[in-house]
């Protein structure tokens, strides 16, 4: 089992947007998708997913509708809105910039500074 990292505050939204960007999903499916795309390296309290989902819906980044799932249960599906897609791209770019900056800062050797 790989070592698991505590999720950074504020990144859960980004992960949800990323997970949903690949197609409409219901709550538990989003959790599985996140575990899958992070290869199980991220640790989140599962219930925390839902306040985040409700918030993203209210912000207009996601839209939700009720439908029947593969196992024939009434399930709430989430999908990305165009505003959500825009936000995802922007956050991805921001995130990559941040990671690159921190990574290069950590790589720096004392004598170079």
């Amino acid at each position, binding site marked *: 089992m790989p070592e698991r990292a505590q999720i950074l505050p504020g990144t859960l939204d980004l992960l949800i947007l990323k997970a949903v960007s690949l197609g409409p999903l*219901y*709550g*538990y499916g989003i*959790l599985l998708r996140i575990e899958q795309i992070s290869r199980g390296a991220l640790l989140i*309290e*599962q*219930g*925390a*997913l*839902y*306040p*985040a989902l*409700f*918030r993203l*819906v*209210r912000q207009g980044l996601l839209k939700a509708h*009720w439908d029947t799932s593969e196992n024939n*249960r*009434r*399930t*709430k599906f989430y999908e990305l809105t165009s505003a959500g897609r825009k936000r995802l791209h922007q956050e991805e770019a921001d995130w990559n910039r941040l990671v690159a900056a921190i990574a290069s800062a950590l790589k720096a050797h004392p004598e170079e500074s």
Partner: protein
Amino acid sequence: MKALALLRSFASSQIHRSRFEDDMDQELRSHIQDRTSDLVRSGIPRAEAERRARLDFGGYQKFKEQCRESVGAHFIESLAQDVRYALRMLRKYPGFTTVAILTLALGIGANTAMFSVVNTSLLRPLPFPNSSQLVDVWARSAVFDFPHLGLSLPDIADIRDQNNVFSEIAPYRFSGFTLTGHGAPRRLDGVEVPISLFGVLGMRPRYGRTFTAAEMQPGQDREIILSSDLWREQFGGDPRAVGITIILDGKPYTIVGVMPPQQHLDFVTDVDYWIPFAPTKEQLADRSSHGIPVIARLKPGRTIQQAQAELDAIAARLQKAYPDADKGWSFRLASLENDVVSDSRTPLLILLAAVGFVLLIACANVGNLFLSRGWSRRRELGIRSALGATRSRIVRQLLVEGLIVALVGGLFGLLIAAWGVQGLGSLLPPDTPRIKDLSIDTTVLWFTFAASILAGLLFSLVPATLASKQNVNSAVKEGGAQTGAGAQHVFLRQSLVVGEVALALLLVIGATLALRSFAKLLAVNIGFRSDHLLTMYLDFPSGKFTKTDQALSYIHEIVAAVRSAPGVQDASASGYSPLSGIKGETTIHTDAMPPNSPPAMSQGDTAFPDYFKTLGVSLVAGRDFAETDNTNSPEVYIVNQAFAKAFFAGANPVGRRLSNQYGKNPKWGQIVGEIADTRDDAAEAAPAPELFAPVDQIKDSGLTGISLVVRTNADPLSTLSAVEDRIWSVDKAQPVENVASMDQLLSKSHSAPRFQTFLLGVFGGLGLLLAIVGIYGVISYSVAQRTHEIGIRMALGANPTQVLRLVLAQGLNLALIGSAIGILASFALTRLMASLLFGVSTTDPLTFVSVTAVLIAVAVAACYIPARRAMRVDPVSALRCE
């Protein structure tokens, strides 16, 4: 209907809410089910899988709560919870709640009542379409110093042709008639108006029509439109009055219309009647009689400044083109809105500010109550925050309590205001614009609502933040022990009291200044005896006399008849009624002025023999007019002391020569008497130079009426019917107008300062009372808090006197600091009321010192009661109560 819709929307929100809850529940539960089946599939026993799934999910209720917060559903619900809780808390402490609500009700009620006056008189737009475009056009003369001079008709025509700023120009002329043939003869005041005036002011008749162009010709102008009041009083409100012919000044006029009721504005819209303005050809050509007031409407987008600039240019051209008639004349524009409210604005705004200070003091008091309660509730709040309430939640809880108190206080305040507005209505000076329309309208309701909310935030925000800031541990641990209040608390409470004292001092100083000024006003020597004096005006309908002689002998007959009435000591006549506010002005030359010098101005009037004796004005030098001073004898004059001072450097004027005639070869006369100055115009104004000519030497035939003064033995008004009988024995058709006792007139002339003084006194008293209650509350609370400390001091040997001094010193300190700030504020602010004061400086040292001393004394006295309590502290029980 509205309530039903509200109910329906509430019900639907409740249904939606439960659906939202169900959905959320289902969504979260199915997550756990999915998880469980996944785990079961991976080979874990079902019971263990269910446990693991729930564990992985985390706090089920917590996340549900967070979900609700995420969509905002939470807010309303928890707010309702706060309200319920607040109501429970307020009910639990009825004493606290009652005091807070009553204090606020007083403050908000007084503010609402005062604001409704300001709203009615100053804020409500004038009842005319686009009233901000309406302007008065007045003339200004280099010679006559009058604010409201009229224009000449040719000048008006030139303005109409040459301007580019007015969309409409409507000249008008005041008119007066005696109505006969409808009960007792009645004097009516009206206006001659062009057709356009009704359009400019948006006036439409209720019955009938306005005038036609054909009726605007001399000779065709015998049509009249009645005011609603006149129509109701004389024709019983019968629409069939339209078409009837009535007799005015002996001539028939046909009623063509009746106007709806108009607002009380002291303006051309609120008169008895309107008739066509039909100047003759001669009047239209007469450029030198400047006497026609004008109302104009600015074109859209034009400002008063632009219009004034254009009028200045036109005036300059007219002065050059017609030097004989227009030299020294220019035009002055004033917005109609300003003209209507000008005199009332400053006093009303000052009163509004004063009553606003009262509300601030009330807020400080209630704020103090909340502070002390926040302190005694810190254990409860501590427990709540230990149980997970966030700080903002606690602040909100306390704010909700404050706002509920404020809104309930505002509601009671509205009741107080509804009652107070009626009182104010009868108290307001009668010339306050639109006073008859005084009412509480939606603007006032919004004001009350806003004032309540603002007051609620003011007095509860700081205590709430402070109460929420405390440390949970210490609050709960302390267990409510009285170990001295937090330093911040003490500081805040004391600052509030200091502020209260400062505001109260400001209010009381303002009230005292007004009171002293009013006392001085009453003490002014008016120069005549106002008791047992009856005044009235006899109007002569135009055409009543064809020759002056007829008018003069008629006046003699009337005066002689009145003098013989039972109960009458003396009677005489003059041109203008004393204290009527109307004065004639005349140009004069005296022998003290170099020949050919420009004329000077003086007030001018006419008097009948024994006029001064009847009034009780003392003769300083010379003699009174005699029956022999008439058209056959040389011109004589009587002047007042101010006249002698102004034109003869105070020397005896008797025997000096004087002319009050304007023109090339004025006739000169002699001054035969000097009288003491009277203040029969306005007591607060310095006496103006005034001259009198004998009624019997009046030459022009335009004698339009005479004012009678009657000295009576008994109450003047009880003698009225005897006097009227005698007048009507001379002429049955003679209207008797403006009947009043001189004391009534005097009291009326004091109505504005009396009103201001009364209200400032009430506000000052209220402010003082609240501030005293505030300082008492803080000191007694602090004594209660310090019982333990005082007990220790006494156990260590302090005697009761030292304890008393300790407590009084604390109160004195607060009063001193507050007074210092209050005095500074008063210095800065009382000068705004300079125009309200008479004979008292706005920084009158006597007032400042005595009021401050009294306030400090009262404040210390208020501390005496808690100080006595402190003295009686029993050290043993004080220490045990730990």
